[in-house]
């Protein structure tokens, strides 16, 4: 039962790791293709479908543990079906590059290789989704190869590309393209040298989670390749860290929009001012900065003229589907209550750990009082019948 509970949690968890990275690629890859994401709506639906299906496939980690036939069939089928939405995203990215005019910068290198890693990790995933194949592959290095292609390939490559992409917006400075290309070469080469042969070691039957193996097993040179690759990969990561450090200190000033990107964050200075926009921008399309060249949307976005919302901290709430203005909500302002609540929580949980029951009771009481103070309906936030006057 513990295994079930673990995987019911942990399988959706791997999607929670990869889906944000997939979102970063869907967001940033089109910038380097000078072309909006192909099949945007389909990619959105595919992402949501992946997450929902992701809650119903956990048993494929446990095929070899003695599961009833019916259950094996169901979870194997569900695991096969999940390849469909993944494939939708992969083909959307490929077509975005195909129809676009790629500008090869460091982020593009990461995003493009991300697609390749995704495909390799996806195919080894489909192989293990098949119950008979999984009986053979379970507990071997094949699974180790698969997990690294999905976790490093789909998460790390996407996140590193996103780091190079958004670093100028965060810091106001560019990261070096030359050092970045070298780092990419080491990471891409080292990663594949380390983990591609692992499929082979797994197929030859090397079990995972062992620290040694007999001399004559024939795995020696494959494992040596893996070792060399892992050192190259580690060196590449070191170069990325150097690149970040160098970029922070000596990077060229980035300007507002170094990549000629279409979305809202590139319309403000780098790094952005604390208030982001002086007035709430009014959008007419998903690509407000590309509206001059794209034949899409109705009308033009207005980035510098919009509702002022300057009475305290306010935000415009819009309707879910049509994004029509619906309500001006008051956002919480600076207050000590959340901090006091966390202090009280520290006392409460610390006392529980140390079996100090009086302190625990005091901490619990303090938490409740802090929550009461925090949530007390306030006139100036328009939470009560006596809301403050608003012009």
């Amino acid at each position, binding site marked *: *039962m513990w295994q*079930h*509970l673990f995987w*019911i*949690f942990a399988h959706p968890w791997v999607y929670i790791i990869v889906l944000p990275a997939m979102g970063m690629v869907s967001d940033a890859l089109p910038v380097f293709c000078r072309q909006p994401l192909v099949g945007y709506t389909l990619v959105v639906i595919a992402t949501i479908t992946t997450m929902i299906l992701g809650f119903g496939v956990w048993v494929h980690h446990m095929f070899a543990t003695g599961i009833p036939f019916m259950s094996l069939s169901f979870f194997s089928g569900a695991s096969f079906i999940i390849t469909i939405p993944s494939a939708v995203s992969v083909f959307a990215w490929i077509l975005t590059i195909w129809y676009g005019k790629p500008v090869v910068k460091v982020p593009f290198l990461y995003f493009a290789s991300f697609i390749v890693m995704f495909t390799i990790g996806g195919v080894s995933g489909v192989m293990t989704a098949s119950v008979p194949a999984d009986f053979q592959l379970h507990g071997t290095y094949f699974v180790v190869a698969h997990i690294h292609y999905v976790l490093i390939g789909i998460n790390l490559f996407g996140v590193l590309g996103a780091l190079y992409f958004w670093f100028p917006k965060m810091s106001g400075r560019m990261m070096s393209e030359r050092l970045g290309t070298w780092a990419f070469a080491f990471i891409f080469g080292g990663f594949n040298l380390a983990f591609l042969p692992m499929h082979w070691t797994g197929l030859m039957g090397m079990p995972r989670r062992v620290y040694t193996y007999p001399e004559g097993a024939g795995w020696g040179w494959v494992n040596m390749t893996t070792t060399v690759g892992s050192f190259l990969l580690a060196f590449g990561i070191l170069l990325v860290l150097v690149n970040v450090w160098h970029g922070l200190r000596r990077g060229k000033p980035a300007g507002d929009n170094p990549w000629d990107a279409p979305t809202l964050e590139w319309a403000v200075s780098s790094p952005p001012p604390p208030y982001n926009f002086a007035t709430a921008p*009014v959008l007419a399309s998903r690509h407000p900065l590309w509206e001059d060249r794209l034949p899409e949307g109705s009308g033009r976005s*207005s980035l*510098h*003229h*919009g*509702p002022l919302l300057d009475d305290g901290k306010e935000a*415009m*709430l819009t309707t879910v589907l049509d994004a*029509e*203005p*619906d*309500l*001006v*909500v*008051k*956002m919480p302002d600076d207050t000590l209550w959340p901090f006091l609540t966390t202090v009280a929580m520290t006392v409460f949980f610390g006392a529980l750990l140390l079996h100090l029951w009086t302190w625990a009771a005091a901490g619990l009481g303090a938490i*409740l009082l802090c929550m*009461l103070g925090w*949530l007390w*309906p306030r006139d100036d*936030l*328009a*939470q*009560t*019948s006596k*809301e*403050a*006057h*608003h*012009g």
Partner: protein
Amino acid sequence: MAETSGTIMDERGNEVLTFGRQGFGSIDGRSNGWWGTMTLLATEAALFVYLLFSYYYMAFHYGRTWLPAELPSFTLSGPSTVILITSSLTAWMGERSVKKDSRGGAVLWLVASLLLGAVFMGIQLKEWSDKPFMIDTDSYGSLYFTVTGFHMAHVAVGLLVLLALTVWTAVGKFDSRRRDPVSIGVIYWHFVDAVWLTVFFTFYVTTHLFQP
């Protein structure tokens, strides 16, 4: 009532956005707190799904021998379930009274929910003390006290929320439009009751339905 509205023009004098009179602040159950509570409830529901999954997993694997010799009875749990459902009804009436600007009625209904909730807690404590097993006796005892214990914790929080809402309503904090805390507290209370129905069905009803 403060409202805001207007037409936004760009530098060329073109119309960018026109919007009608906008509501302002926490209003008609559309506040951030409402949606925050919805996500909280989804998370809490997932916790109970995990706990009940564990129960059914053990029950299907080990059958009758896994259950205690004396199956959970309806003597106390039946009335306590009716009491909890009634408290949901009274809480709903309380929210309705706030929406109708009837302060006295609202306080009355909220106090009724508080009392019914407290009675439920009392009955549940009696039921706990009557059990011949403890949380560390066996896996059944462990699941029984963990699941009903988590539910009791939610009831306790719900009672504190209802208490605060009763006081705030009594001193006139809310009216028919500015009443989001009441709606949020009451939906939380409905959730606690709905969870009890699943717990009740799992521990009390299924054991009698599938007797070998």
